[in-house]
């Protein structure tokens, strides 16, 4: 049997671009957070809070746009707790991140109770005029909703800011050596809190994309590990923005392919197909970390608590 039997490659590319959006958004946010020297393991929790906040706002106002704003605000609000605990109260970042995920999962299912089975207002796709009529390419690249393009723009923006602006330089300095950055007069804690808020907003945006466009409805545990995969993609990307895009598309491709195989009734049992994205993420992590040059790419102060003693 042909492995891809009956699956149109153009449709496959189009749907992998959609499937990757939540992970791109969450991962690029987390990349900024980690570049500032903070490890926030609460991505899954921030995503799912973004998913329910976005969903609720969109349903109540009837506007998907406001829904996305709500999702970003929800994610940022949760990340504010993380910022307070780790930056002001100097709590352990690993433990706080886990707490954020556990709390987010509980709170989201609490908030989402009255939204089960509700349909969100549809998000239209962006009208790109004649571009979308190009045979093949049009289906593949130019018939998406605005968020698909926004996610790519976000990667470009983060790359530009980190690489070519003073803000990016300061952020990286704080992440590489917070003592030195402090000595130079930069406000380490303030910069990190802002980075954490940005990461939270991006994760919330990714979550809102899941509940408003990708699924689109509210179910408990809707993120299903997407936040953890976003964390893995940051490692895979060796903390480089464009590689986040590459990693997310690879992952999105695998997800879409296994979903298509499930739908096409492949002879592999469904459960084995649905575990494949996680297994492949682990495999990729192993390959990346086995390479010594890449594993030193992590920001030097990552996960360390900063306390200005002087």
């Amino acid at each position, binding site marked *: 049997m042909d492995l891809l039997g009956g699956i149109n490659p153009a449709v496959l590319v189009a749907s992998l671009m959609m499937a990757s959006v939540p992970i791109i958004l969450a991962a690029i946010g987390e990349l900024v957070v980690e570049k500032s020297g903070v490890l926030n*393991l609460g991505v899954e929790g921030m995503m799912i809070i973004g998913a329910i906040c976005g969903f609720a706002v969109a349903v109540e106002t009837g506007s998907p746009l406001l829904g996305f704003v709500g999702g970003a605000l929800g994610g940022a609000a949760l990340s504010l*707790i993380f910022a*307070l*605990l780790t930056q002001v*109260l*100097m*709590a*352990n970042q*690993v*433990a*706080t991140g*886990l*707490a954020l995920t*556990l*709390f*987010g*999962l*509980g*709170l989201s*299912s*609490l908030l989402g*109770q009255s939204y089960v089975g509700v349909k969100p207002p549809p998000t239209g796709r962006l009208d790109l005029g004649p571009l979308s009529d190009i045979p093949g390419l049009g289906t593949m690249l130019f018939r998406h909703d605005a968020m698909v393009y926004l996610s790519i723009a976000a990667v470009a923006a983060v790359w530009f800011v980190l690489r070519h602006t003073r803000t990016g330089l300061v952020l990286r300095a704080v992440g590489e050596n917070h003592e030195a950055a402090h000595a130079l007069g930069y406000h380490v804690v303030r910069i990190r809190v802002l980075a954490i808020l940005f990461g939270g907003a991006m994760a919330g945006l990714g979550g809102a994309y899941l509940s408003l466009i990708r699924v689109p409805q509210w179910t*408990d545990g809707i993120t*299903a*590990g997407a936040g*953890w*995969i976003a*964390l*893995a993609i940051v*490692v895979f990307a060796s903390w480089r923005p464009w590689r986040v895009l590459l990693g997310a598309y690879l992952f999105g491709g695998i997800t879409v392919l296994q979903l298509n195989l499930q739908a096409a009734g492949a002879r592999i*049992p469904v*459960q*084995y197909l*649905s*575990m494949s994205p*996680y*297994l492949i*993420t*682990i495999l990729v*992590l*192993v390959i990346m*970390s*086995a390479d010594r040059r890449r*594993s030193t790419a992590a920001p030097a102060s990552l996960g360390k608590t900063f*306390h200005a*003693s002087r």
Partner: protein
Amino acid sequence: MLRLEKRPNPSRFWNYATPVLAVVLTMVAGGLMFALLGKNPVEAIRTIFWDPLFGEFAWYFRGQLLVKAGPLILIAVGLSLGFRAGIWNIGAEGQYMMGAIFGAAAGLALYPADNRLIFPLMVVAGALGGWIWAMIPAILRTRFRTNEILVSLLLVYVAQSILASMALGALRNPEGGGFPGSRNLSQWASSANPELIAGTGMHWGVVAAFASVIAAYILLQRHILGFQIRLAGQAPRAARFAGVSPNRLVLLCMGISGALAGLAGLFEVTGPAGQISIDFAQGYGFTAIIVAFLGRLNPVGILLAGLLMALTYVGGDNASTNLGLPAASIQAFQGMLLFFLLAVDLLSNYRIRPSRKEAA
């Protein structure tokens, strides 16, 4: 303004006082949350924390307490060893499922034999299942320096898929009329893990949990391995100079926590749960992380924390039947507890002093 001054040594007083303070703060914040949900906060807190122990139906709830606390304590004791050494196994939920699957499979392979050795064999298989699942992140970390946090967590989703495939396929009850789920292990004399003293909820898993608390206490206080674990967590560099092999610690800590989580799964599937089913895993592996921290990574503390957390489960059930409080609110409540715990931990490591105006 206030400023923080790092203590040379963590405060002994606050070390014991912070968990209590965190519980009190969580009750206040939880009460606020319940008030926002339109419930009487005092009544909700009483229904969760008081009624199961001293209310009208306490005779029923008290038994449930040990049933819930058993797996939590067993898993948390294992996790705490690794957490002390900076080894983050957060995939206990997956190891719990694999323990149940391995144990149940070993037993069901011998169905319907009648032999007293079957249950011990299943216990060994359960521990083995959890151990194997924990060895994957452990070996990947020691061989390739792969982050064990991400791998152990991602393996939970893999285990969930395996569990579903077992419930629908290999382990499905052939006499179950095509419904998903295995044979009922608690109704087969050779594999049953019954209540040992009627009405207490005490089953072999609870016995194992108590034993693990004692073993961990002795290990940490009296054994060289326990010393090495504490040393590696507090001063990794000093530990390396003292000849502690980081890799060996990773393998040991992950292995022990995996085996204990596997045991918890096995005792659950043969006792309270009764069978392998798709929704067998109820989040004990994640809640145990909170239990480990609430107990300050100390075996005796974990025992108390496990009982308290079990109370929130039992009381939460009570509140959801009697007050219509959503079941998910208990999960949020537990997450909140961990937040407060981490926040007030500041008090044991820092002094809060009014900041002086310094001459520039």
